[in-house]
């Protein structure tokens, strides 16, 4: 467990440093994810050892969003003025995003097979 957590932090750190140093538009954790993915491609056994800890972390992914969600308390004023615009934009764009993604993939998978 400790080794996996250390590894995750190490890759995140590498990602952050790389993003800053090369002035990439991509956030550090995403670069870290890419670097880890490339490492896994080269070292198959590593995924096995990381499995349990990673599963535990990802199973509780929702929890990690709670502190940011509570931040709503600091934006009540802004949301008070704008909430109809924001909610309508969020709901419609979510529906649109999901429908477009699902239909694009469904259509392309079918034409791929056919």
């Amino acid at each position: 467990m400790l080794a996996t957590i250390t590894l995750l932090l190490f890759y995140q750190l590498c990602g952050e440093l790389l993003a800053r140093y090369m002035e990439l538009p991509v956030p550090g954790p995403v670069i870290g994810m890419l670097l880890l993915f490339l490492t896994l491609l080269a070292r198959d056994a590593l995924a096995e050892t990381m499995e349990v800890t990673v599963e535990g972390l990802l199973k509780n992914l929702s929890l990690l969003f709670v502190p940011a969600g509570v931040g709503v308390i600091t934006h009540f004023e802004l949301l008070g003025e704008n909430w109809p615009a924001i909610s309508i934009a969020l709901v419609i764009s979510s529906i649109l995003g999901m429908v477009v993604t699902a239909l694009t993939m469904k259509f392309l998978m079918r034409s791929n097979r056919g």
Partner: protein
Amino acid sequence: MKGEIVQLWVYLSATPLFGLTATLVAYLAAVKIHEKFGSKPILNPVVIAVIMLVIMLSVTGMDYATYFDGAQFIHFLLGPATVALAVPLYRQMRKLRTVFFPLMSAIVAGIISGGISAVYIAEFLGASIETALSLAPKSVTAPVAMGIAEAIGGLPSLTAILVVTTGVIGAIIGTRLFDLIGCNDDSVKGVAMGVTSHGIGTARAFQVSSEMGAFSGLAMALSALFTSMLLPWLLTLMGYL
């Protein structure tokens, strides 16, 4: 007696232990409530936990910064969790290869349609540019979305809330929406869920099936990567940057 309680509270509110413990207790209680009522998507644990904590902060008068002193330890884990997505991504390598082209195209289509429509609709309905831009990265996982918001001139803290809300919306309406459009392939449903509703949608997808969950996690990881590359460029093209 009352004096003692006040003193105790003064001590508690000054230590990060309180915000941290309160967050965990609220989340565990929210999960219990969620399960007790048949795991209905509308009773999303994140929403219940946030409501409980907001009420607690309002009642006690504790400010968000003090609460976050403790809660930041949980918030911090979003970074390593994003890195950890490399593992399920690697696990799905074989399936990934067979659907590579449809998958990539669908993710890009989803990012563009979801992100751009949110900005346009919000602006059309009278939201400020700053608010509209804060909406643009709402479909990717929180630390990435906040990073993007900062880069494109939105408000990272507002984006964080919008990210959570979008996640919850997708988790609530997702499965019903897929039934409505006649979509019953778990890999397709997972991808659509992950692109739109990141980690919160992925948590919901895992309730449906492990295949839907894995594809949602995969889509969420790829969409975090693509969105951070595509969005600044798209917004420049649209004349916002």
